[in-house]
């Protein structure tokens, strides 16, 4: 399991609150750190996470004597004002538990079809956490990985939304249907607006790649297709914005 160096206090705080044992170390310069990082250090200490000095006066921040955190440590000394944390990646889950409860309690799930940009990936997790999305399916190949950047952009969102890494999206969509989800895609050719979609069902919303949108094969799997705007192409909105509008719409927020 690999280790991530996170630099957003909100993403670190969320990890400390939800899985403190995976937070290996918080490094902080108490003199220059902002309030958000000071709160992180306090929460880390309370949770039994190692807190060490970071950066600051050259030569005073020693990094020796660390146990298991291993690689990914060096090269940060002397960057005054900075703080960071080493956090293990979060485990993904299988599809069956991911889609559990769809028939009993309607909700929103999201599938990302070969998203390229870690900023978009992180932004979608952030929005998903805000609207209580129940799970996210991610493709493994030719897709932005859940990197430290994605965790930091998500601002804690990755900790609150379960996800499943899948090689074959079509199979995941079939599994979703079996579990009682309906599948929704977006396209500028759709005749109905997002507002026309029945919000009492459980939906798996599919977000296509930034450049080509939804693949034809994926569109064929969709139970419903809606549009977000009467004008513009399918990729005309930023992928994380398009996802945000769909998630908010299906959640009944707009």
């Amino acid at each position, binding site marked *: 399991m690999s280790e991530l160096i996170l630099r957003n206090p909100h993403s670190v705080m*969320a990890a400390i609150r939800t899985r403190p044992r995976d937070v290996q170390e918080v490094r902080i310069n108490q003199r220059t750190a902002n309030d958000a990082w000071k709160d992180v250090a306090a929460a880390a200490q309370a949770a039994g996470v190692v807190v060490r000095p970071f950066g600051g006066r050259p030569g005073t921040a020693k990094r020796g004597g660390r146990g298991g955190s291993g690689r990914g440590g060096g090269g940060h000394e002397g960057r005054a004002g900075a703080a960071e944390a080493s956090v293990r990646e979060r485990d993904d889950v299988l599809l069956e538990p991911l889609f559990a409860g769809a028939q009993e309690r309607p909700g929103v799930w999201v599938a990302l079809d070969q998203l390229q940009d870690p*900023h978009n990936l992180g*932004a979608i997790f*952030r*929005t*998903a*956490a*805000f*609207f*209580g*999305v129940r799970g996210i399916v991610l493709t493994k190949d030719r897709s932005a990985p859940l990197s430290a950047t994605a965790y930091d952009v998500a*601002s*804690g*969102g990755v900790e*609150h939304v379960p996800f499943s890494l899948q090689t074959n999206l079509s199979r995941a969509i079939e599994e979703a249907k079996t579990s009682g989800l309906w599948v929704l895609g977006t396209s500028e050719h759709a005749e109905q*607006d997002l*507002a026309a979609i029945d919000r009492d069902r459980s939906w798996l919303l599919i977000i296509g790649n930034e450049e080509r949108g939804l693949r034809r094969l994926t569109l064929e799997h969709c139970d419903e297709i809606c549009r*977000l*705007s*009467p*004008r*513009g192409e399918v990729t*005309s*909105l*930023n992928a*994380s*914005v398009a996802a*945000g*509008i769909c998630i*908010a719409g299906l*959640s*009944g*927020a*707009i």
Partner: protein
Amino acid sequence: MVGGKRRGRRQRKLMGSHQKCWLWGRNAVLETLRSGNWTPLELLVADRLRPDILAEVRDHAAAGSIPLQTAEAADLHSRCGTSEHQGLLARMPAFPYRPLGELLKQDLTRCRLAILDGVQDPFNFGAIIRSADVLAMDGVLVGTSRQCDVTAQVVRSSAGGVCHLPLYQAEDLPAAVAALRQRNVTVVGASEAATVDAERFDFSGPVAVVVGNEGVGISDALREQCDALVGIPQQGHVGSLNAAVAASLLFYEVGRQRRQAARDRDG
């Protein structure tokens, strides 16, 4: 002759700093050239640029009297600091915002404007412009305090939006908002301390949506000028929305209500 022209142009303020005035990428540069309202000071093309693109770039350069030079890809890389230049760079002057007066001269009875009060992140700024363009807002008005400039990254994140959507700038945003309200524009602030959900707010009249700074939100002086503060109701247990996503949700909601109202009118 070319030298003379360039000497004259060197006096102009550049986009970003001297090092950061290069716009890169095929789409970003071509869209800017096609729009014709933000003329590059100079074009730099890689010697291996595709012939059809080179031909279009040459046409624009000739039409706009823009100096054009050919260089090796490595040279382009070192100018713009990224390998994603796709063989095309443009040295840009500062972005030509439209003055507030131009906005106030227009018929504002159907206005749907976005106002940005200190959006700092270039990805957010670009994404907001892109969304405002696609979701049929009329334009974006920005202030000067804490506000991100139109940089190369903003142009790229906006996916050409900076070339299509009117962008206005006002030194004194609270005064600009007061002037808009004088013209019966309802000014709505997007805020986590909102008193009304966006879905319940009536956006059918002339409206301006204010989006604040990523960290501190809308400035006090501007918040006092807002007719209402609206928000997006949270459904999960944690977190907040990214500024670009929150802004886009409101733009979408404005459009949705307008379309709904039009359908109701038409029976």
